[in-house]
């Protein structure tokens, strides 16, 4: 069974929500904290609700709507989101008031919007969609598990399309606290939302095929990852030579980049490599941005200098492998191909 990506939507530190494509040249995002460039939400959300909603909800709704628009459907047959941190801003607001007001005189709005399934729930509300609705909250696997769940359900054959995506927001509190763990010494903190309409039928604007997804939790070594990638490709009837472009989650942190270096040199020697975290920053669901980028590269058949890390851009791009890890503990592989 083929699974097509019939539409994509992405809110990121770049103007991806408005332009729908990658920049030609890498913008100079030398900040340690990348903030999403938010689109005009009025086209999708009532203005009164815009004021009440936190950024992660709005980014998620926007990415969902953009992907549905491109796919040409109004109501998906399933909504699955991934978010590692959930609705951090509302969580922080409620927690702060609870502590400073000593548990008195609290109001419900921030609490209501703090649950991790708020984004998926709001999308269902806006679309009046009674279909399957789920939210994965597993750190650096949150996005990958939404894809795995989607693939399993599409294969069951009861539904023909699913809206799948991931979103995370960076707040002042989370940036402060994560910085204390020395996470942003070599890399910028990021945020964003990316959504995909996956379908068993090829849509008019299909951008790529989703061939497979696999996750590897706390591998013992880069050798184990390399062997796992070879096995993953074989399971999808793909050899290492069939891959035209590798996208890795390089973020400038030497300890983390060593894992990518090993895979690039030992599994895909001589293949061109692209990167994406200099554009979206590091966050647990950054692989959703990477997948969005991979799908746009396949659709446009163009690897811009803004993302090429080594090698020369291939003339034809049939298969792209995204290999990412978050914090060296959560490794994932996502294989996309030309329609």
């Amino acid at each position, binding site marked *: 069974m083929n699974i097509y990506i019939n539409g994509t939507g992405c809110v990121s530190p770049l103007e991806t929500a408005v332009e729908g494509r990658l920049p030609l040249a890498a913008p100079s995002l030398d900040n340690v904290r990348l903030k999403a460039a938010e689109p005009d939400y009025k086209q999708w959300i009532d203005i009164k609700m815009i004021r009440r909603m936190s950024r992660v909800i709005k980014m998620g709704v926007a990415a969902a709507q953009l992907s549905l628009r491109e796919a040409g459907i109004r109501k998906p047959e399933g909504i699955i989101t991934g978010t590692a941190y959930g609705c951090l801003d509302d969580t922080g607001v409620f927690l702060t008031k609870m*502590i400073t007001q000593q548990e008195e005189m609290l109001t419900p709005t921030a609490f209501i919007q703090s649950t*991790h399934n708020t984004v998926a*729930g709001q999308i269902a509300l806006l679309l009046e969609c009674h279909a399957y609705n789920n*939210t*994965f909250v597993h*750190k650096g696997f949150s996005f990958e598990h939404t894809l795995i769940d989607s693939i399993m359900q599409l294969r069951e054959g009861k539904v023909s399309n699913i809206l799948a995506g991931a979103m995370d927001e960076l707040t002042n509190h989370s940036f402060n606290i994560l910085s204390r763990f020395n996470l942003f010494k070599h890399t910028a903190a990021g945020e964003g939302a990316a959504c995909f309409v996956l379908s068993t039928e090829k849509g008019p604007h299909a951008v790529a095929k989703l061939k497979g997804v696999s996750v590897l939790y706390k591998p013992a070594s880069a050798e184990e990852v390399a062997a796992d990638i070879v096995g993953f490709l074989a399971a999808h009837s793909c050899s290492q030579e069939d891959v035209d472009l590798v996208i890795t989650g390089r973020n400038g942190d030497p300890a983390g980049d060593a894992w990518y270096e090993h895979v690039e040199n030992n599994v895909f020697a001589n293949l061109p490599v692209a990167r994406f975290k200099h554009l979206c920053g590091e966050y647990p669901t950054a692989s959703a941005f990477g997948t969005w980028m991979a799908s746009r590269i396949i659709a446009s058949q163009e690897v811009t200098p803004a993302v090429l890390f080594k090698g020369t851009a291939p003339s034809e791009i049939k298969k792209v492998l995204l290999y990412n890890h978050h914090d060296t503990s959560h490794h994932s592989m996502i294989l996309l191909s030309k329609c």
Partner: protein
Amino acid sequence: MSGNDVWVLGGGVICGIGNNVPECIASFRQMKPGMTTMQYLSSTHRDSFPVVEVKADNATLAARAGLPAHISRTALLSAVAAKEAWNSAQLGNIREYRVGLVSANTVGGMDKTEDFFAEYLQDNQSGRLRNVVNHECGSITELVADTLGIRHHVSTISTACSSSANAIMYGARLLKNNLVDVVIAGGTDALTRFTLNGFNTLMILDQQACRPFDDTRTGLNLGEGAGYIVMVSDAIAKKMEIHPWCKLTGYANANDAYHQTASSPDGIGNYLAMQQAMEMAGITPADMSYINLHGTGTLNNDLSEGTAIQRLFGNAVPPVSSTKSFTGHTLGASGGIEAVFAALAVKEGYLYPNAQFSHQMKELTFSPVTTFSEGNVINNVMSNSFGFGGNCSSLVFSKDVNT
């Protein structure tokens, strides 16, 4: 046998009415609900709202879980119940299988984050980092996976009060797709000030013991705990001698798409989840032996759920009860805890009582079972879990026709 069956081999529970499954069953048998004044949670609302706490401090739980006492209570509860579940399945060494742990929770390590945040708000360089390092929901699952030795598939789901029903559903799909041999699925949540105060702002906490499906009900009691079932696919079941409790034959997830926190008056999401789960199980309303209700005790939930049940079952509503009248509402753990009770009902012929029931709801034609009984003919049990965000999920557990 369809060749695609999912077998339930065992389960584990820790909650306010027992530290393990036999203790919970004893509490049902003796009609002893677990509501008390807070002993372990520290809150200014201590004397306003009864809660259903696990009757053990973190040091005691940590010793049982084999984890450090300073980590989140949510992880400690999870490890205790997951271990009981694994042992009850009688599968031996966990490292001999491709095992998945799919565990739900709603606020991760919030109990520790609350302590951290109080200091952090004074000065953003203060507060012990070890109290916030496991804030994420996924961290809780990983603490437990690591201590049990599980690596193949570790996932966390959070859809408010329906979280662990969705974890069980996803776990079943992992088995059917041969991504793992065995799945431990369910959920965990410890009481936190965050959730207590959150539910208080919604004005749905009862100041007395909650009265699900009673006409005088005014709200829910929060509880805490963890519950997991262990499932295997047919392929594994055929290879070995197993002693299954029952099968998971149906599951469905639908969205109410009505309001972020409230259920629709006709319970459309509830109805769709129940109807589709029964359709998948291949059973009709007449085949249903018992429904373990979501039954929180709020005005809104019980009316929506009851209305949806009447629409689906008409005048032939099977025995129903809300075990939350004993355990309180354990949020992200409730679907897991109640799945264990539901699976055990099939195995043992149990019908669980609904405590604190005395007044028939005027909108409904049926009322819950109020006494414990065993030895009943129980072929199919449905477990309902409905939550914020319109998330509605139902599971169906069935007796194997060949056993």
